[in-house]
């Protein structure tokens, strides 16, 4: 899987994810991509190392008296939360808890022309949704005000810039207007996150936009 990925995260996004300053919807999308992509995982761990170096270099703030004993007592009293159980799924693991299950449990809502979506619960600074695009169908032509990330989970799509297959992530910004079209052959499922509403160019989608919450 990991070797076939052509489209990766940017350094800016990886550094911000490592620093822990991104909206939750972006965190989720990045965690899902990194689960599938060892190249970006290595880059992410390198950015974590920058954090480690900065921490080592940090000015000290002296701890309260007795703090070490208090911390040790808390450590011994508590137990680390157990890791979540592993599941075999076509979905990357970070998505499972947001869906509350697997692919079959996604609550799709039609948004027109055969395209379906499911909005995932995240903090309000950005939104995340799953998109289901039937083979050969298009998502309406749209531009972006902020950043939009689209991660392919199944199938593939192409737009004016390139073709994106499973594991690939497209980072779109204000300069890109595009009409993603799912390839013939397999329905396409994507995870899309954006920190601003999309701008659709046609009239109908624009009227529908408040209802679709995209």
């Amino acid at each position, binding site marked *: 899987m990991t070797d076939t990925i052509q489209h990766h995260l940017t350094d800016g996004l990886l*550094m*911000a994810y490592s620093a822990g300053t991104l909206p939750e919807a972006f965190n989720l999308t990045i965690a899902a991509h990194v689960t599938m992509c060892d190249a970006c995982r*290595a880059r992410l*761990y390198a950015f974590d*190392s920058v954090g480690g170096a900065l*921490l080592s270099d940090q000015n*000290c703030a002296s701890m309260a008296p007795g703090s*070490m004993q208090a911390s*040790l007592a808390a450590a011994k009293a508590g137990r680390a939360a157990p890791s979540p159980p592993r599941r075999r799924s076509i979905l990357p693991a970070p998505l499972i808890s947001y869906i509350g299950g697997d692919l079959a449990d996604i609550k799709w809502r039609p948004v027109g022309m055969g395209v379906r979506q499911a909005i995932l619960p995240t903090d309000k600074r950005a939104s995340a949704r799953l998109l289901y695009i039937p083979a050969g169908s298009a998502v309406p032509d749209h531009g972006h005000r902020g950043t939009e990330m689209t991660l392919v989970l199944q199938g593939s799509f192409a737009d004016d810039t390139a073709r994106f297959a499973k594991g690939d992530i497209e980072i779109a910004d204000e300069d890109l207007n595009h009409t993603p079209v799912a390839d013939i052959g397999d329905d396409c499922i994507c995870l899309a996150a954006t920190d601003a509403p999309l701008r659709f160019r046609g009239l109908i989608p624009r009227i529908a936009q408040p209802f679709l919450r995209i």
Partner: protein
Amino acid sequence: MTCTIDTCPNDLASFTGAFRNVFAAGCRTPGVMSIEKSGSVQVPANRQSDNSRWTVCIGRIRDDADEDAFAELFDHFAPRIKGYLIKSGASATLAEECAQDVMATLWQKAHQFDPSRASAATWIFTIARNRRIDALRKSRRPEPEDIDWGPEPPPDQADVLALEQASEDLSRAISSLPDKQKALIEAAYFHDLSHSEIADQTGLPLGTIKSRIRLALDRLRHAMN
């Protein structure tokens, strides 16, 4: 010249032994280690690296619930974690509480530390960062799924040493960055610079550490399959 540490045996007891051997003096004698691709980078014989000291401490906590090792780590890291949290906008009280939590988490998760993928300082940074997000942002940061699935193979000792060396090189490189550039990177990590404000060309020399980590990941994938 290569580091002649045996490849790791499978059982935990010998793993622990091998883990410790890495830090035995023998491995730090002149000319023993040379792992970089050109063979040109060597660990100076007389420098006891901080990172390897902390790695040993975490190993002692994991294996022996060693409270002295905890105290040593606490003395070094807790004030730095507190400083990091205050710089990120926490009050002194909150920062104190969170720094204690971070160190308690370190104790509880010592068995999860993999020194072939992160230095001790890096691993502690990730715990502190997660605590900071919980405390200050009341937000969530989902993590990628870990690669290891089932019984984890012991880290390759050459990988551990190479990663340690690369981490130290990176630390030195960051300290010697021009002030302006260093300030930008600190702002990204401490002051919520948005991702679009972070340049995609950070000028950080991450090539070596990235390829070291990638090798360790490939080895782990290979072992898991």
